[in-house]
């Protein structure tokens, strides 16, 4: 009969010996099937499946990713309040299931673009916590050498990080055009918020993407508020998954990483099979205000925030699912938490001690593949150098 790990440890204590508890992985359920919320569909015969398979390894990985994003954002909050991060800082805590679920469903060779609430995606697309925090603190070790800041972080197949509301959507459609043009079977995930959902350039993008059957997954991360304005006060229709009209859409529980993953898989298959674009609305929530200069409680109640935290937190939900199906132990989660805490602490340490970029960097990166050029400084006697 297999003993559970706590029994083994108890034996070890009683015997007075220091025993390294060898956790028998046969103790844990290796894979389970979970019911996920049905997605509302628009112009589709059927939606994503109602069940999601989850292996132990996947579960721990999703947990790790979401918890890392969570802790990283909370660290950014702390650093901002210490005035070590300045300017704009839009935090993602609460929405982790979206970034984690999407990344779990696409390939590293696929493309992704989002707006300014981008730290989570920067991480899931492969940039380390260290490079993200160092970019936020404006140091030379930052992913954009400190020149971009919070809203302008990039990585291969990750096109930022965009500061102008809605502008990233035509860009995403364009990336999808390039995928189709090059025949590489890749898709572009193009994210925007409920606030951006009313922008004209979105509808222009939907039209062209549909006309030309671009492999573009348009995803509306609906966190219910566009800065301080609730969706009802901004949108004549809040069925964001239907707003593409002739573009099919699905509405997804954005707090459930499995739901997001299954929906994204469904959407990616749709695009890759040449059917054209598709819209996903992820119903999610942000715990922080719009940015660090918004307390986030003048347009919504603390009770509402607390209710989402206690009933729908994406990380808690995954953890509880795995624990109640005996897919992992509380100790394992604690160990992961400790490791993440250390990773984030080390990253913050780097981000606060790394030097600022040197002044020689000031004018570089104006043009690509260009011979060096001279740049006018603040007055005619100052000429600075710019290299590609």
């Amino acid at each position, binding site marked *: 009969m297999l003993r559970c790990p706590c029994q083994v440890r108890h034996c070890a204590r009683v015997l007075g010996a220091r025993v390294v508890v060898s956790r028998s992985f046969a103790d844990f359920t290796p894979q389970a099937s979970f019911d996920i919320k049905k997605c509302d569909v628009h112009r589709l015969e059927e939606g994503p499946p109602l069940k999601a398979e989850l292996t132990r390894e996947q579960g721990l990985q999703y947990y790790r990713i979401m918890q890392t994003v969570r802790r990283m954002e909370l660290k950014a909050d702390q650093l901002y309040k210490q005035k070590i991060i*300045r*300017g*704009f800082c839009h935090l993602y805590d609460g929405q982790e299931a979206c970034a984690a679920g999407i990344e779990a469903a696409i390939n590293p060779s696929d493309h992704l673009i989002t707006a300014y609430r981008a730290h989570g995606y920067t991480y899931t697309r492969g940039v380390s916590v260290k490079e993200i925090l160092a*970019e936020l603190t*404006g*140091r*030379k070790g*930052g992913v*954009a050498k*400190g*020149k*971009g*800041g*919070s*809203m*302008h972080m990039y990585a291969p197949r990750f096109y930022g990080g*965009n*500061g*102008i*509301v*809605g502008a990233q959507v035509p860009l995403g459609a364009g990336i999808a055009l390039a995928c189709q043009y090059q025949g590489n079977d890749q898709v572009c995930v193009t994210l925007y918020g409920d*606030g*951006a959902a*009313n*922008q*004209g350039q979105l509808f222009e993008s939907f039209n062209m993407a549909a006309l030309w059957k671009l492999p573009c997954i348009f995803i509306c991360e609906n966190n219910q508020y*566009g*800065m*301080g*304005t609730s969706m009802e*006060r*901004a*949108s004549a229709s809040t069925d964001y998954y239907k707003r593409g009209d002739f573009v099919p859409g699905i509405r997804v529980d954005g707090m459930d990483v499995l739901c997001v993953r299954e929906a994204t898989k469904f959407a990616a298959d749709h695009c890759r099979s040449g059917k054209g674009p598709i819209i996903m609305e992820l119903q999610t929530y942000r715990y922080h205000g719009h940015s660090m200069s918004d307390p986030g409680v*003048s*347009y919504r109640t603390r009770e509402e925030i607390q209710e989402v935290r206690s009933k729908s937190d994406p990380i808690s939900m995954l953890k509880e699912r795995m624990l109640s199906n005996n897919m992992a132990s509380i100790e394992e989660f604690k160990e992961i938490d400790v490791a993440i805490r250390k990773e984030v602490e080390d990253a913050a340490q780097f981000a606060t001690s790394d030097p*600022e*970029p040197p*002044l020689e*960097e*000031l*004018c570089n990166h*104006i043009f690509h593949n260009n011979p060096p050029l001279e*740049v*006018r*400084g*603040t*007055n*005619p*006697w100052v000429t*600075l150098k*710019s290299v590609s």
Partner: protein
Amino acid sequence: MASSLRCFLRTGKNAVSALQRREFHRTLPVAVQVTVRDALNQAMDEELERDERVFLLGEEVAQYDGAYKVSRGLWKKYGDKRIIDTPITEMGFAGIAVGAAMAGLRPICEFMTFNFSMQAIDQVINSAAKTYYMSAGQQSVPIVFRGPNGASAGVAAQHSQCFAAWYGHCPGLKVVSPWSAEDAKGLLKSAIRDDNPVVFLENELMYGVPFEMSEESQSKDFTIPIGKAKVERQGNHITLVTHSRYVSHCLDAAAVLAKEGIECEVINLRTIRPLDVESIETSVMKTNHLVTVEGGWPQYGVGAEICARIMEGPAFNYLDAPVTRVTGVDIPMPYAKILEDNSVPQIKDVIFSVKKTLNV
């Protein structure tokens, strides 16, 4: 009203809170300390009260009290009809504002920053600026586009651009750039009362700065004429021409230079278009030296225009040295503090340029 309290505390024993009601008779004229933010708020409040055709629309202007709190209290006072929260759709709501202006209203269209006005710039130029001309005088567009312009602190490349030169380039627009609280109040009231499209370029870093406002400027009929510059400081050796936040830089530089016996005349442009060339010429004909100071990029900028105009007019013959332009560095705005600080004119840049121009 935290910002008023802050300005009260900052400015010492003679400061009077801007909230103090002027209901009792005072025997002596009283100047009060008012922040630029509160001055703008007062201007809009007074004009909304004066003319019911005036209304304000923009993102977060109503229930949020304004992204930068400039419209604080206005929605509470005037309600949904006069203070309108829009979705995040600049092209759309700027066009709606222009249409409303064409049909008899007097809208104030707020851009959360002028960076976002680029989404709507077709409406500003093609629908607002050119219409009176295209219609041979039949259709006027009495609209004000206002919001913060230029660099802030750490907001990076897409949020730091100065649009003075862009809008200043276009006939049919008036372009205003206030510096002080009096400028802000008087010029905004004039802009709202003007029957033409006015682009009103504020500055986020100036919002919280308190200035003494004369008693005259506290009157509800106080306006400052658009198109007239102001000499903020008299001097004989060199003319500094500037606008917005850089007026402060120039005055600070002038104070330092005065200790070395160099007396600068500082001209606050107040209006970018129409440019008050005469005030600049009068000054240059006295001082024989000119330095322009602006936050925007150098190429095709405000300073470049001033240089051209001086060269084309009588003041050219009075110059003892070429005009010097002090401008932002010709790059997108970097995020890191050390880089950002070196991307915009500092007081030391103004001092250096003055001395080089004077060859001292």
